[in-house]
C-alpha cells in the first residue's frame, strides 16, 4: 500500500509551474459552471423543499418536513415509485438479455449485420416525445394498431391507455422498444473488443458454443454489462419524456414515474416547494444507487 502511495505522491510533488498554470487556467471555468448550474440549484431545491411556496417572490412559509410528510403514504407517489421499480425490473430481466441476444447475432460478420444494427438502433435516435406520440396512436383502440388487431380477431376495440390496470404496460413496451437498441450497441462494441483467438482456442479445445459463451464471452463482456445495467437503472429512474405525450400520467395517475409526478404535482400546480421535496427524494435515490453500484460492481472497471 505504502509503495503505491509514494508512487502517486511523486508526480504530484514534481508538479511544475506548467502544471499549476493548467490548473489555474482550466479549473475555475469548470468549477464555476459546476457550482452555478449543478451545485447551487441542488442546494436551492433542498432549501425550497422546506417551504410551502408557489414560485413567486422568496419562499416565506416555512413548514419544516411537511412536504416530505405528504409523500409518505401518498398513494400516487407510492404508485410512481413502484412504476420506476417496474421499469428497472423489466429493463434488467427482459431488455438487457434481449439486447445481448440480438447483439450476439449482429456483432459477427454476417451479411447485412450493419443494416440490422442500424434498424435496431433507430428508435433510440428518435426523440422521446416523438416516440410517445407515435405510440399513443399505435395503442389507440379506435384507429391504431391495436384496433387493427382487435378488428382482425373480431373483438371489441380495446383502449389500453384508458385501462388503469394495464396502461403502464404500454409505457414498458415503449421503453423496451426505444432503449433496447442502445444497449445492443453497447454489447456489440463489447463483443467486437473480444479477441477472436480466445474463442478459436476454446473451439479447438472442444468447447461447445454454449460453453464458449458462458466461460469466455460473458466474463469478458462483464464491464459492458455492468455499464449497461447502470445506464438502464439511472435511465429508468429519470424517465419522463415518454410518459407525458403517451399517457400524461393517467388514467387516475397510475402511469406516473417520480419525475412525471414531480412535474404534474409540483410544477404544473405551482407547488414549487413540494416539487423540490420530490426532487430531493429522487436525487437521494439516484445518488445512493450510483455510488453504491459503483462501489459494489464497477470497482475494477
Amino acid at each position, binding site marked *: 500500500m505504502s509503495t503505491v502511495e509514494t508512487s502517486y505522491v511523486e508526480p504530484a510533488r514534481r508538479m511544475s509551474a506548467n502544471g499549476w498554470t493548467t490548473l489555474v487556467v482550466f479549473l475555475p471555468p469548470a468549477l464555476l459552471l459546476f457550482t452555478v448550474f449543478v451545485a447551487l440549484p441542488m442546494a436551492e431545491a433542498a432549501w425550497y423543499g422546506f417551504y410551502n411556496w*408557489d*414560485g413567486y417572490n422568496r419562499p416565506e412559509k416555512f413548514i419544516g418536513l411537511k412536504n416530505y410528510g405528504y409523500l409518505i403514504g401518498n398513494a400516487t407517489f407510492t404508485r410512481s415509485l413502484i412504476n420506476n421499480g417496474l421499469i428497472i425490473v423489466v429493463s434488467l430481466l427482459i431488455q438487457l438479455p434481449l439486447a445481448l441476444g440480438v447483439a450476439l447475432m449482429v456483432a459477427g460478420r454476417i451479411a447485412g449485420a450493419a443494416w440490422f444494427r442500424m434498424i435496431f438502433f433507430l428508435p433510440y435516435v428518435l426523440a422521446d416525445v416523438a416516440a410517445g406520440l407515435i405510440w399513443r396512436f399505435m395503442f389507440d383502440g*379506435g384507429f391504431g394498431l391495436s384496433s387493427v388487431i382487435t378488428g382482425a380477431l373480431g373483438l371489441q376495440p380495446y383502449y389500453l*391507455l384508458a385501462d*388503469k390496470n394495464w396502461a403502464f404496460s404500454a409505457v414498458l413496451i415503449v421503453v423496451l422498444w426505444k432503449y433496447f437498441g442502445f444497449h445492443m450497441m453497447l454489447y456489440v462494441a463489447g463483443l467486437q473488443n473480444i479477441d477472436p483467438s480466445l474463442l478459436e482456442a476454446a473451439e479447438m479445445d472442444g468447447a461447445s458454443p454454449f460453453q464458449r459463451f458462458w466461460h469466455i464471452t460473458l466474463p469478458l463482456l462483464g464491464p459492458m454489462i455492468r455499464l449497461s445495467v447502470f445506464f438502464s437503472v439511472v435511465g429508468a429512474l429519470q424517465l419522463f419524456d415518454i410518459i407525458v405525450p403517451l399517457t400524461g400520467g*393517467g388514467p387516475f395517475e397510475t402511469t406516473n414515474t417520480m419525475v412525471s409526478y414531480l412535474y*404534474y404535482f409540483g410544477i404544473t*400546480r*405551482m407547488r414549487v416547494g413540494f416539487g423540490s421535496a420530490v426532487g430531493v427524494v429522487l436525487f437521494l435515490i439516484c445518488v445512493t444507487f450510483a455510488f453504491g453500484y459503483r462501489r459494489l460492481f464497477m470497482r475494477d472497471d
Partner: protein
Amino acid sequence: MSFRRFTIAAACLAALTAPALAETTVTVLHVSENADQKAVWDKIASDYNAEHKGVKVQFKYLENEAFKAKLPTMLQSSDRPDLFYSWSGGVMQAQDKAGFLKDITADVASVESAMSPTAVDAFKVDGKVVGVPFEVGEVAFYYNKKLFEKAGVKAEDIKTWDDFLGAVKKLKAAGITPIVVGAGEKWPMHFYYSYLVMRIGGEHALADAKAGKDGGFKNATFVEAGKRLRELAALEPFQPGYLSTSHTQSSGFFGDGKAAMDLMGQWFIGMQGPNSASGKGVPEDDIGILSFPIIPGGKGKATDTLGGVNGWLVTKTAPPEAVDFLKFFSQPKYAQEAAAHGGYIPVVKGAEAYITDPLVKRLAADLAVTTYHQNFFDQDLGPSVGRVVNDVSVSVAAGEMTPEAAAAAIQDAAEQQ
C-alpha cells in the same frame, strides 16, 4: 481634432442615436393559437405603432403550458413582458400578492365603463384593477342536430337534468354515442362538475366553499354535484376509451359525426372542423347549442353561465406607454373588428352586434343576459386546488372515487395551500 469639429461630430452622433434611444418597446406576451384573433391584434399593434412615433408594440407568443411554467421566473427577471395574457382568478391573485402587477384603476376607468361589468370585476383584486379583459366565453353543449333527429330527441325539450338524462338514454338506445369528452386531459370533465355545483348551489357556492363555510368543499353542494355526475356517467354516455382521449381528439370525434354532444367552450366551434377526418367537420347549420340543464330544487338558474374571462395584466415596471396601448386596444372599434373577424366574443358592450357566426352570436346573447357568470373553476381556484378539481371530476365520473372522497380531496388541497 479641434473642439469645434468634435462638437459637430458629437452632435451628428447624438442625432443618429437619439431616435433609437427614444424608442420604447412594449412587449405583449400571449398564448393564443387562433390565427384570426392574432391577425386582429397585429393590426391593432401596427395601427398604434403608426400613430405613436418612438413606441413599438410587439406581440410575443408562448405555448400555453410553457407560458404557465415560465411566467413566474420571467416576472422575476428583467426580461418580463409589459403586458401579458391572463385567465384572471387564483393565478392572477398570486401574481398581485407577489407585487408584480400594476394598479391601473385610475388609468383604465374610462375604457372599462364600456365593458361588461362581470368581465371587468374578474380583473380586480381587493377592489383595485390590475388588468383589462378583452374576451369572455361560455361553456355549453354543442349538439349534432342530425343525430338528435335520428334518435328522436328534441333539444328544446331539454330543460332539467332528468330531461337531459332521458335524452342521453334515447341517443344510446338509437346506437349513437351521446357525449364525447376529452377526459384524458381531465379539465373537459371538470366542466360537468362545475356546472353541477353552479346549478345546485347557485352563485355563492364556490365563494362560500373557498371561504371555508359549511365544511368548505366538503359541503353538501359539492357532494351532490359528484353524485349527479356519477349518475350521468353510470349511463355510459361517453365514447369508448374516453379516459385517454385528448381534447383535440374529442372535437374531431364530434366533427366526424360520431357523437351527439360535447360540453365545451366557444373555441370548440373553430376546432371540430379541422380536427375531423374530412377536415370539414359537421356543417355549422347542423350544430345547435344547448344550455346546461337545471337541477330542480337547486339554487342556480338556467341563465347562469360558466366560461373563461381573458384579459391583459400590466407588470409593475411597464412604461406608461403599455397602459396607453391597453386603452388603445380596448377601443370599441377594435372590439367590433374582433367580433366580426377575430372569432371571439369581445367584452365591449354592443360589439356582439358585429358577430357574424350564428353559434358565437348565440353564446354572446347568453352572456349578454347572464344572471351570474362564473370563471372556470380551475382558473378561479388557482393551479394547486384547480387541478385537484379536474382530477376528481374524472375519478368521480369513472366511479373510481366516491363523491364524498372527491369533495374531501378538494378541501385537503385548499387547506394545504
